């Protein structure tokens, strides 16, 4: 036990104990059974950690009062549970009492039918322990493969030291009604003022997702024993990944000590030689008004990945400069990537690729007039149509001719994909073999050799006013005359 231990567990022995009496005495004698094992199950989607600890306690026959206190920690008092791991028979919790004058303390009265030693398990929820994933991607100098390293970082701000704890990390979002940190501040007597049904539901939901039954925690070792035992070179701890229901559990091999206030970062996995491609995209809705460079890879076995979904986390991208050094490219918040899904790394604009759109020409035709504000419409140039004074332009086709210029000053050929979105009744005329991404978004692609440039011409015909019959883009093959 560390010297600053704040969760105190007391087996109170009273020479003149009355059955079921609370130890409200001025003179107490207590023994403090130490933790045998401790297991932390940390949820990264919520400020929630399930702590399971075991202790060995000697009971006398009859009623044994136990005191459990957690001063200056963030434990949810209503979540504390006591179970008997062995022997399971012959021991019974008679009642639990939260004394009014000691908010971070409870008493159990345990009845034992014989004098015996027993292993008990105490579990509770605490806040203040969190974990987060983060990643480092280092692309090779030629940007054909990259090295991806994934880390998990456990941060302990719970007020309690957890020594040699088995650490399990839950990937996935759970639903909670209240925040544990808030509950930890509420006196037990006032928690009843919360909506009890909701609260119970919350507990049950959380409990269902506890991933029970837990793997038996590793026996506690003296601090440093693991290191002393090094015979060969110590390998980084393996983080075992298991899927369960909609969740993934990462179990860190062996035990970890994370003192209060400390954070610890461990490698979750690393993969070298992960194949990747580079693509340039213009999609204003997704990437803003700029041509964006992207690295693409896939979270699958063929890409030397795919053993686990990638949890949300900060990903930093570097590129090897071929001289043992790195170039910093970008940092982005990676969203959860399921196994098999693609991974997109957004590197922002590339100064070596110039992307310019020129509006070359505008003209209008197919002009329709509304005659005298009525329901009669006539087309300009139609036989018999006169210069009626009292008529208004009601519909027309607006032709806009564009030239998309792209220059590639990189040392490699590049592929550029462009998406442009048009509202209204639109004809998109070109020789670019475009496709429709959706009813109003045109997509086309081009390759540009190293040091080369392309000019892509297209015409957008917007049917306006009375001429607008649809709301969609129609693709039309045709030559453009600037």
């Amino acid at each position, binding site marked *: 036990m560390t010297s600053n231990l704040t969760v105190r567990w007391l087996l109170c022995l009273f020479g003149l104990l009355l059955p079921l009496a609370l130890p409200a005495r001025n003179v107490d004698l207590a023994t403090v059974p130490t933790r045998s094992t401790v297991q932390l199950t940390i949820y990264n989607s919520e400020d929630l950690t399930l702590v399971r600890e075991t202790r060995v306690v000697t009971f006398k026959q009859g009623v044994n009062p136990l005191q459990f206190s957690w001063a200056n920690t963030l434990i949810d008092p209503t979540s504390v549970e006591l179970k008997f791991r062995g022997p399971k028979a012959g021991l019974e919790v008679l009642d639990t009492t939260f004394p009014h004058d000691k908010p971070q303390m409870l008493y159990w009265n345990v009845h034992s039918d014989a004098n015996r030693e027993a292993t008990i398990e105490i579990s509770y929820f605490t806040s203040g322990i969190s974990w987060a994933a983060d990643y480092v991607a280092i692309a090779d100098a030629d940007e054909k493969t990259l090295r991806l390293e994934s880390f998990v970082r456990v941060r302990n701000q719970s007020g309690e030291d957890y020594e040699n704890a088995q650490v399990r990390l839950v990937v996935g979002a759970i639903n909670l009604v209240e925040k544990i940190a808030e509950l930890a501040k509420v006196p037990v007597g006032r928690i009843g003022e919360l909506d009890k049904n909701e609260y119970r539901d919350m507990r049950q939901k959380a409990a269902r997702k506890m991933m029970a039954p837990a793997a038996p925690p590793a026996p506690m070792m003296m601090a440093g024993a693991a290191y002393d035992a090094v015979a060969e070179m110590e390998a*980084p701890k393996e983080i075992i990944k298991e899927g369960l229901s909609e969740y993934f559990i990462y179990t860190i091999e062996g035990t970890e000590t994370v003192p*209060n206030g*400390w954070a610890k*970062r461990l490698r979750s996995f690393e993969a070298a030689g992960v194949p990747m491609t580079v693509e340039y995209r213009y999609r204003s809705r997704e990437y803003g008004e700029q041509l964006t460079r992207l690295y693409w890879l896939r979270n699958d076995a063929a890409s030397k990945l795919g053993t686990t979904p990638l949890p949300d986390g900060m990903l*930093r991208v570097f590129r090897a400069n071929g001289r043992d050094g790195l*170039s910093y490219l970008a940092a982005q918040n990676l969203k959860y990537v399921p196994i098999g899904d693609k991974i997109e790394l957004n590197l922002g604009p590339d100064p070596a690729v110039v992307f310019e759109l020129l509006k070359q020409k505008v003209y209008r035709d197919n002009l329709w007039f509304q005659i005298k504000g009525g329901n009669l419409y006539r087309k300009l140039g139609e036989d018999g149509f006169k210069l009626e004074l009292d008529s208004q332009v009601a519909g027309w086709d607006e032709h806009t001719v564009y030239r998309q210029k792209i220059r590639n000053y990189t040392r490699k050929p590049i592929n550029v994909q462009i998406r442009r979105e048009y509202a209204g009744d639109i004809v998109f005329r070109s020789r670019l073999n475009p496709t429709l991404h959706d009813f109003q978004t045109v997509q086309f692609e081009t390759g540009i050799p190293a040091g080369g440039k392309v000019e892509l011409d297209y015409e957008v015909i917007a049917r306006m006013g009375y001429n607008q019959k649809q709301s969609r883009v129609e693709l039309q093959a045709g030559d453009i005359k600037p």
Partner: protein
Amino acid sequence: MNRTRWLYPLGVLLVLGAGPLDALARIKLTTLPVRERVEIQLDHPQIALVEEERIVPLVKGVNQVDFSWANTRIDPDTLVLRILPPPADQPLDAKVLSVSYPPNETALVWAVAASASGAARVRISYVLGGLGKDFHYRAVADRDEKALNLAQFLRVNNNANEAYDAAEFWAGVGERFGKPLGLSETKEVQLSRFTAVPVRKTYTSHPVEFGYLDRAQDKLNVPMHYVIKNAGGALGKEPLPEGKARIFQDDGKGGSAFLGEDRGKFTAPDDELKLYLGLARDIAVRRTVDRNERQRIAGNLYRYDVTLKYEIENFKDTPVTLDIAESVRQIRDQIRGDSGRDPEWQLGDGSLRSPDLEKSDADKLLFHVDLPARAADGQAKKQIHTLRLTLNNEW
């Protein structure tokens, strides 16, 4: 112990079996591996990446490598420790097991496992705030303003509260270079020098972009620029980053005269860098709308015939080329108000009929007009030019 080492102590605890908690121990022995090499990568537009190479003594087993930084803006989340491959004759397999972050300290502790006792060459990379850069240029034009020498400088501003006795810098352009960089020091180096770069001196009138010298008299501003194409010779291989340019001209007496300064924009290869020199006072351009006629096509649909007239005088004793630029949309808005639609136009039979197609588009028109020098008697010959436009389908 030099300051660098104190500011960035990289300590290796020679205590086997040390867990993270032992970092709290009161008595410990620490070795301080010095920096063998430092590279500062400034190729990212906003971020400085520092890479330090150090030789770290390791003992067989698990070693604690402490890295701490005081009063500097290292982004601890960007710290990467890479163990470089050992020499073939000294095989040493080392691996990072974990990183621990002690509370309330700007420090971290790497747990590094080593297969044998020996020295490992490691690279520590981190993003460092307060280390900024900017580019600037010095352009010296020759006497007749046909060519100039362009020098490109990099200025590294060290407000990171850390000194580097020797560092190799890479700014993304130009050559790598090695220099020391002291505390709060600004280091300036010449990255590139481009000699005899062809330069074009332009005189431009553009009512939208440069406005009027005297609106009541319809006199336009005529700014002067040096235009350099980032192509040819040593240029054109890399972009020219944004930066302030100081412009000089050879005075023919072995010195140079300061002409002014401008902030040059990022210039990709094959693009033009325009440097503003000030207003030309010896070239007078009066712009008037000479004609504006409306013809009804049908209903509320009209065609406009517009003629702009330019009266131009060159009071210089050298011939020059004037660039006349116009925004058709601005002309349309001026004569009939903004309809919210792009103008549909055709060039008419004015004297300005051949726009520079490379630099003109659906809205912008650019014409080049040659102006002779003023006559021997000192009189400037007034040139009249007209731009005739038909604006179709306006309502």
